[in-house]
């Protein structure tokens, strides 16, 4: 029963990680770019949300409604001002640029919000629970999982069915061929990054509701997103979702064994997957 509980907790934790991993998988799939400031953006959005909530007494839902468009805008600006200049076959410029951005963001947040941990007041939401078959599950983690599933499903459908999705897939398959058919890669990239960071708007609200955030927390979130993407299999949207579940379950079981072992257990599962199935658990083998 205790282990079943860890499994449930792990799946719910995975819902959180899926919200980070989706954006990373999307950006890497389209541009072959990893945004090192990915985790720092989550923290920045969280801190903005917390400050809004305390200043104006907003509940979680209004914060979410403000934060997601703000995140979309941030992503669009990030692409226009930084990433469009460094996208290309050489991974170095984009890594260095976003690395510098990450350092600057972390320390800027440290100055504005100090090193203290804060969280978003949930007005009772964070302590409510529902009973399913004899175990009590927190209402908030269930909402997180449902939102994560909906986001994954929505992103997958967008990629498969819409005009934007087709343009995006074309640009990721062969950017020059896509440009010849009338797709503007820069516009597609801007929308992809806007979507990726937009999803982080959801992640920011839930992260600051379910635990605390501090300016230095970003790199850890980046690493979890990365591990989820690699465990699941690169590129695929549902791969990132399932990878997040595997990572969440590994960490939850690790925490149950020993509190100092939780995060390490996730890393170890990641390394085992990398050693035995480098294309990811759910990815198709190339070559």
């Amino acid at each position: 029963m205790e282990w079943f509980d860890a499994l449930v907790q792990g799946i719910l934790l995975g819902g959180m990680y899926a919200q980070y991993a989706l954006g990373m998988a999307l950006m890497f799939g389209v541009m072959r770019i990893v945004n090192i400031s990915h985790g720092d953006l989550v923290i920045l959005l969280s801190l903005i949300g917390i400050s809004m909530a305390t200043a104006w007494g907003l509940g979680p839902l209004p914060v979410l409604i403000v934060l997601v468009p703000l995140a979309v805008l941030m992503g669009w600006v990030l692409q226009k001002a930084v990433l469009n200049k460094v996208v290309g076959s050489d991974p170095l410029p984009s890594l260095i640029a976003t690395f510098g951005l990450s350092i600057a963001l972390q320390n800027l947040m440290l100055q504005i919000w100090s090193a203290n941990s804060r969280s978003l007041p949930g007005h009772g939401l964070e302590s409510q629970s529902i009973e399913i078959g004899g175990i009590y599950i927190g209402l908030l983690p269930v909402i997180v999982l449902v939102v994560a599933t909906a986001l994954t499903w929505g992103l997958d459908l967008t990629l498969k069915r819409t005009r934007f999705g087709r343009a995006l897939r074309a640009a990721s398959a062969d950017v020059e061929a896509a440009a010849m058919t009338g797709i503007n890669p820069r516009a597609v990239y801007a929308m992809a990054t806007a979507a990726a960071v937009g999803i982080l708007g959801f992640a920011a609200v839930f992260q600051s509701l379910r635990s605390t955030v501090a300016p230095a927390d970003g790199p850890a979130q980046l690493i979890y997103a990365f591990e989820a993407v690699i465990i699941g299999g690169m590129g695929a949207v549902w791969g990132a979702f399932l990878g997040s579940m595997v990572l969440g379950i590994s960490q939850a079981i690790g925490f149950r064994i020993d509190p100092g072992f939780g995060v390490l257990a996730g890393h170890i599962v990641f390394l085992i997957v990398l050693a035995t199935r480098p294309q990811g658990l759910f990815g198709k083998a190339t070559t």
Partner: protein
Amino acid sequence: MSAIPYPAAEVPEVQVQRQTPSGRIAMTLAVFALVAIAAMPWWASTGTIRSILVLCCYIAVAQMWNLLAGYAGLVSVGQQAFMGAAGYALFVLAQTYGINPFVAVFLSLLVPAALAVPIYFLLHRLDGPYFSIGTWVVAEVFRLAASNLPIVNAGAGMSLRVMKDYSSFERNVAMSLLCAGMLLVTLGGSYWLLRSRFGLALIAMRDNPVAAASQGVNVAKLRFLIYIASAVGCGLAGAIYFMAQLRITPGSAFDPMWANVAIFIVMVGGIGSIEGVLIGSLIYFIADRWFGEYGASYFVVLGLMTLLVALYARTGIWGLVSKRWDAPWFPIRRKLVDQNR
């Protein structure tokens, strides 16, 4: 079909020129600097020696990162893994097993070398930017493992108490010699490597790995060797740095700050050149002394500068300088000179 005979007489009599006047001056200065560093106990205070030691560690770590990112195309943000591993190895060998610490410095280099092999085989499967974050995960795994391992005193860290068996002067002599040796191995070794046949292959690989491979360069093997060499170089810097600190904890040993330092130095100084590493190290060292007290705002500026260099001036300061004046300090080019003219 017979082969067309190549008229041997038409091969012009040329000489390969490899050294330049600027290079000779720089080489002389470099030798003087090395001797001065080795002789520090006789002219510098203990405080100065400590500062120079930190500067030497910056130079060594940055040059190792430069070899990785600037030539092998492997952008690592986790070289602190090897610094910490060698540092811990030194503490365990010297403190727990009672081996002479100045011998243990060299023995401890076996640990990063041995760890780098499996790590490279795991991580090289990751594509471009994912490789970088993979190296970071490895450094985190090392940090968490060190926080849980009883042999390294877990999260509490270790102290190098055996160092008090040596007088302050003896320690200063050892530190100075180690610094000079570290610079000789990391900078001198890189220079030697770049001037050798491997250097040609490395430069070809830096410019275009696919084209280099088509010319017979074994890109995969070279990358592997550079990764191991860089791990050992960073290990040496880590062992010397923590020997001077006398104390090591999981947080300090595997501090991502070292990745920031290496990236800032190499990108601002100029990637793919030894000159850039020296310029960048001096800038960072001076900036750290002058502005370090401003804490977070100092790092905001540092981060923004890295960002701006990546966006607008990818060759760094040395790239701008060498475009203007052709006077390399460490020339690695081969220039053909016709003696008859």
